[in-house]
């Protein structure tokens, strides 16, 4: 467990008061608007900022405990910190920057390999360069590599991928997932990109003006109404726990079994029976009264309307019951009236295959 | 350059005359109600300042060389030279260890100074007291023996300090300097014929011979001044 329960007062009116616990082997996303206190929490864990009071502990071992007068020095915490600004050492080449933490780690405990990281981040051609000659994204990549190579026992990442292009992100995210899963490296992760958060995170801590709004497993928190002002309307969705039930080699697809039946998704590189998680964005769910025939949509689920919330503006939220679970859909108010959607109505939910995100995760360990 | 008659004359005097000149200045002001301004520095600095047009009225050098220099350059008035005072060259030791000696050709410097004892004086190639000391020791035929023990200080005060503190075994200074501090004792006087006469020539600066300057210049050779000089330890002629 990562236990955090701290209080910090800043001159100028901001105060942070947050307490939560996160699993040691997983990604905890810190979520909140600009100025909510995300960086402040990360800094407290790293030891860069000293809380006014409270306690921070990893697996029961305290990093900070104002009651007991404990404040472990930064370097002894071994928390790899990817700063919001890159903070590369200007007097060292990219390679020496990368090696800085590595050389200071125990030689026998270097599971994160230099070559692998360089390859992953695509910075091989930059090794001899100096930081001031790098572009914004290059700098950020080197900073990520440097933190990883310090072989941390905890990763603190403050918007690490903000300056990176989609393609690079798509390469780095699976690596972070691997770190999380294979090395069971706990990660505290700040990002404004909901996709990233949903993909990586096991646990979400939502902050608002220095106070906890919600904290808990991703599935729960991201569907909580308190989270709306933080996340914004468009990206609401449903997280569904599934197990891999079949692979379709021919079409490069996989079937995932879940409470309401089966979902077809692009091939998941997991063995049959493995637990995985799928996300269905509400905006990607269409509703039909009769089973649509001959459509390109491969996921058709029989459902019952449980609730229809007409919103201001053009939209309506629809909560569907699928098997024993729920699925959120978003349609226009006009469609809701046209189809006369009402609780109890049996409908078909249409989910385009391509709109299903999937990820591996270890549900038992957390819930 | 014309100096205005009512201006307070500026007197350039060698540092070693600080004491005496200040007292004479006070006496002069007490007597006449007129003021004089002094500048005390090394004779060389003063001479060079005169050379660059310093509007001083009177130059009192610590040795004849610098006075000759200003004369040659036409800076001071040769005709006005007076040398009312002189000095003698003495050997001093820290008060505690002092024992009188006789400074003649047979004086055993080696025994006196020991293996690595130091004899401190002014710089032997530039500071007048050092030059006199070197000349005296040479004429006594002992320079070569003593040479390696000689330490040159920038001014008399520094030399005195070294002797006072016991850092140097002994020192060669003017008798006036020895009078400054109780922590040193004069243990011997160099024979007057072992070195050129130690003299303090005074001259009026060219173009500055105002009545005020002349008045003070005259006062410098008056009996009152001589008495003050005598009290300060110089040899009054």
């Amino acid at each position: 467990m990562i236990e955090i329960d701290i209080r910090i007062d800043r001159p100028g009116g901001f105060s942070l008061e947050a307490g939560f616990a996160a699993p040691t082997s997983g990604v905890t996303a810190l979520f909140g608007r600009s100025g909510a206190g995300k960086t402040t929490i990360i800094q407290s864990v790293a030891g860069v900022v000293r809380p006014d009071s409270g306690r921070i502990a990893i697996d029961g071992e305290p990093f900070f405990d104002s009651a007991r007068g404990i404040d472990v020095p930064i370097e002894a915490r071994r928390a790899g910190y990817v700063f919001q600004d890159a903070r590369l050492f200007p007097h060292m080449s990219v390679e020496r920057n990368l090696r800085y933490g590595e050389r200071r780690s125990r030689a026998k405990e270097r599971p994160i390999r230099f070559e692998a990281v360089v390859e992953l981040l695509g910075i091989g051609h930059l090794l001899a360069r100096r930081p001031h000659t790098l572009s914004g994204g290059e700098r950020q990549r080197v900073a990520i590599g440097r933190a990883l190579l310090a072989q941390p026992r905890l990763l603190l990442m403050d918007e690490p991928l903000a300056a990176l292009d989609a393609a690079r992100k798509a390469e780095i995210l699976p690596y972070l997932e691997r770190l999380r899963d294979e090395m069971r490296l706990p990660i505290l992760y700040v990002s404004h990109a909901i996709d990233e958060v949903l993909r990586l995170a096991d646990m979400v801590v939502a902050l608002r003006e220095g106070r906890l709004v919600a904290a808990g497993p991703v599935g729960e928190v991201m569907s909580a109404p308190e989270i709306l002002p933080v996340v914004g309307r468009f990206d609401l969705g449903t997280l569904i726990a599934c197990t891999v039930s079949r692979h379709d080699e021919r079409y490069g697809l996989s079937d995932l079994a879940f409470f309401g039946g089966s979902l077809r998704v692009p091939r998941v590189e997991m063995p049959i029976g493995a637990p995985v998680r799928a996300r269905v964005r509400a905006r990607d769910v269409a509703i039909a009264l009769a089973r649509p025939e001959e459509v390109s949509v491969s996921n058709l689920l029989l459902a019952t309307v449980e609730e229809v919330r007409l919103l201001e503006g053009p939209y309506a939220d629809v909560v569907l019951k699928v098997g024993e679970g729920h699925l959120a859909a978003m349609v226009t108010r006009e469609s809701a009236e046209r189809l006369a959607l009402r609780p109890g109505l049996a409908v078909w939910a249409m989910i385009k295959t391509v709109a299903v995100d999937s990820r591996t995760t270890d549900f038992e360990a957390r819930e | 350059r014309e100096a205005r008659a009512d201006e307070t004359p500026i007197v350039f005097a060698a540092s070693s005359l600080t004491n005496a000149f200040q007292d004479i200045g006070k006496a002069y002001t007490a007597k006449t109600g007129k003021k004089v301004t002094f500048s005390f520095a090394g004779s060389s600095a003063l001479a060079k300042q005169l050379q660059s047009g310093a509007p001083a009225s009177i130059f009192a050098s610590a040795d004849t060389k610098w006075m000759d220099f200003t004369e040659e350059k036409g800076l001071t008035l040769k005709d006005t030279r007076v040398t009312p005072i002189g000095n003698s060259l003495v050997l001093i030791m820290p008060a505690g260890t002092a024992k009188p000696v006789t400074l003649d050709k047979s004086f055993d410097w080696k025994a006196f100074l020991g293996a690595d004892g130091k004899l401190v004086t002014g710089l032997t190639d530039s500071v007048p007291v050092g030059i006199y000391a070197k000349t005296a020791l040479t004429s006594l035929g002992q320079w070569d023996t003593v040479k390696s023990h000689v330490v040159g200080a920038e001014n008399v005060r520094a030399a005195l300090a070294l002797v006072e503190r016991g850092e140097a075994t002994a020192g060669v200074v003017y008798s006036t300097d020895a009078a400054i501090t109780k922590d040193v004792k004069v243990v011997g006087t160099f024979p007057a014929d072992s070195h050129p006469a130690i003299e303090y020539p005074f001259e009026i600066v060219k173009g500055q011979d105002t009545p005020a300057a002349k008045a003070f210049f005259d006062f410098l050779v008056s009996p009152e001044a001589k008495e003050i000089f005598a009290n300060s330890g110089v040899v009054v002629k």
Partner: protein
Amino acid sequence: MLTPEEWVAVYLSLKVAFWATFWSLPFAVLAAWLLARSSFPGKGLFDGVVYLPLVLPKVVVGYILLLTLGARGSIGQYLDAWFGIKLIFTTAGATVAAAVISFPLSVNAIRLALEAVDRGLETAARTLGASRLDVFFSITLPLMLPGILSGALLSLAASLGEFGATITFVSNIEGRTRTIPLAIYSATQLPDGDAMAIRLTVVSVVLALGSLLLASLVDRRIRVMIGRA
């Protein structure tokens, strides 16, 4: 506590140190800027000339001043003839001597501070419509204030301690050029001058500690102001 003539020396010292610092500072900033930010033919030589007063014995510096700025000096004669400025024997001369001696020290401090100013901020200011000069006064100068203060302090301290160049250039005249160091020197020539020398040394120490204290207070305020506290 102090005799009237000692007070005069203290007052004169403060005056000389203050004005030497005051007048030399803008030139020091300019020189630092030239050395750190511009390039021109003969810059190396200029660099050398700036540091010269530090390397040369102060007495030599005094002589050089005498030769150039004295009443018959190569520059001094025109200063006198054209502007009626007389440096020899005057407090102004002592101020010049102190300024020249302390110049390399303040230039060095200011230059180091200038080099530490983030040029990215200057660029940003220019994109916001500020001319180079405007940028200098609104961005660069405030950000290098700690260095300027440090340079001023060094200049003040060095001026308070200056002896060799002063006595050589402007002599040792009470109330005009006899600053504390010269007064201490004169005191050591007197039979009973030790007490006075010690008194004046103590005064020097007190002045130094006082200006340091003042400087560190100002420094703290400056740092808060420029967000580097």
